[in-house]
């Protein structure tokens, strides 16, 4: 993100209404490699191609905010790899991590990883370091420390069914696991911030939040997210594109000031649930509209979203969730133009 974009983002979060209205998208491996015309494996294994793909997106769409911007990642393998998860990287499919905890008893033995040396994390950081000069040359900075959230990582390490069952049947073990993951995440975020002083935001992604009711979320989610977001940064960004009606009222207490939901809830509803204290990055349907519709369809759905909001403060117009695979440049332009001309 450029200095101006970062300043604009902070203005939006403070409630200022920009003219033209802002657009933004979470972009990462599900969209970038195919859009840039390279194999997914090449995107992960070539620092050059990764950088070029990111720079092309920024150059092609200079008027939109791409979040987190220059996301160095290995899909769902990034953080689980530090815990020793076996990672599968099919040539042109998305990578996935295999579980490392077979039963709740294994949690006692789980070691908190060192993010500076374990798993793929040194590669994540080094890719950014190698690219930093070119990123700066292009007028951008690395702004976010990024990680999957603690519940999401727990479900990867253990399996989501087993993790949620442990929460209900052996709550002490579930807390032990989440505490270890949170300690790891805290050090991982700190390391990113120390490595890149330009970082002034934290971006966590966790859709397991959406599986929980209020009693489970307040016990197993809220305190850990509060701890992670309790760092001195301006932008505290959360992605959860699963169900979010239960957790949305807790977003301000978590410390979140920017939220990317799914598309099964309206921006208007979210503004009400958060008392308009949280900026919403959303939320036309990502697959059925942004990826699958034609330009006219995108324009129509975008106009509907715009018309649904009498108060356009604290909104960055986007799709629900991240940019899905297969979205064309034409559809992105149709979306941005429709918002900007409103």
């Amino acid at each position, binding site marked *: 993100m450029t200095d101006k974009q970062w300043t604009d983002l902070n203005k939006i979060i403070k409630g200022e209404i920009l003219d033209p209205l802002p657009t933004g998208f979470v972009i990462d491996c*599900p969209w970038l490699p195919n859009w840039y015309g390279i194999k997914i494996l090449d995107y992960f294994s070539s620092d050059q191609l990764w950088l070029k793909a990111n720079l092309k997106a920024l150059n092609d769409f200079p008027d939109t905010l791409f979040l987190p911007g220059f996301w160095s990642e290995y899909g769902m393998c990034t953080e689980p790899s530090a815990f020793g998860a076996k990672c599968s990287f*099919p040539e042109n*499919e*998305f990578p*996935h*991590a*295999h*579980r490392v905890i077979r039963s709740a008893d294994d949690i006692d033995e789980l070691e908190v990883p060192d993010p500076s040396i374990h798993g793929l994390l040194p590669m994540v950081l080094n890719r950014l370091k190698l690219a930093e000069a070119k990123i700066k040359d292009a007028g951008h900075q690395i702004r976010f420390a990024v990680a999957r959230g603690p519940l999401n990582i727990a*479900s*990867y390490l253990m*399996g*989501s*069914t087993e993790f*949620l*069952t442990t*929460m*209900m*049947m052996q*709550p002490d073990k579930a807390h032990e696991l989440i505490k270890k993951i949170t300690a790891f995440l805290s050090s991982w975020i700190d390391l990113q911030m120390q490595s890149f002083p330009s970082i002034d935001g934290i971006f966590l992604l966790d*859709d397991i939040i959406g*599986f*929980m*009711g209020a009693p*489970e979320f307040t016990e197993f989610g809220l305190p850990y997210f509060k701890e992670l977001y309790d760092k001195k940064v301006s932008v505290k960004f959360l992605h959860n*594109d*699963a*169900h979010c*009606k*239960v957790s949305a009222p807790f977003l301000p207490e978590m410390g979140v000031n920017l939220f990317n939901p*799914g598309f099964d809830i309206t921006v208007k509803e979210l503004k009400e649930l958060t008392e308009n204290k949280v900026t919403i990055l959303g939320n036309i*349907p*990502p*697959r*059925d509209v942004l990826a699958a519709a034609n330009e006219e369809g995108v324009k129509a759905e975008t106009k509907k979203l715009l018309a649904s909001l009498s108060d356009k403060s604290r909104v960055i117009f986007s799709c629900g*969730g991240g940019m*899905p*695979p297969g979205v064309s440049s034409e559809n992105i332009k149709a979306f941005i133009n429709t918002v900007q001309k409103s």
Partner: protein
Amino acid sequence: MSELIDKISICVERGKVNLKAPFPPDLKEQPGADEYTREALEKGETPEAILQACNQAMENIGGKFSRNEVFVPELLMAAKAMNVVMEHLKPYFKSGNIKSKGVLVLGTVAGDLHDIGKNLVSMVIEGNGWKVEDLGSDVKTEKFLKAIENCPGCIVGLSALLTTTMGNMAKTVVEIKKQYPDIKIIVGGAPLSARAAEEMGADAYAADPQEAVKYLNSWAS
């Protein structure tokens, strides 16, 4: 309904698995579905009556889940309690006293290791009297085809949690329909919609396990 069957029904709906289970907190240190079912069978309650009450309990909790009154952990615990009851009733299935409604071949599609949706569907459907052939997660098309070959007349259920694996789901649907055009396929998962299901050629989209049960029962009747 007898008092014991009523207790089993409550335990299933509230997810009280057994005496040791700490959930739900207000039933802590009380017997659960496991103990009550054993006692009910010993006292001569019929397996059919127990099953009927449990099916109703699962329908109730499924309805609450559909209305967002309870969430995945509660449904998961209800399904676990139901499974405990089913363990007690298994001998009666085997003896032919209770008949299975059919077979669902179920799996999370290739590239997707998420199992929560698939497991919930499996447990709820099994609790509704179906046999489930659970192929697990990250299941390649060939494995589905092999399972169909081994289970003539089955229904196929495909699950995906990631937007990124929906393409694999579509490929699997197309291949199954190519080789077995009469097989019914039901799909579900967070990134899906009825429209997406229709586009990929599936017969139905279920937003939650209870909806899946309704489709399956309608196809079986």
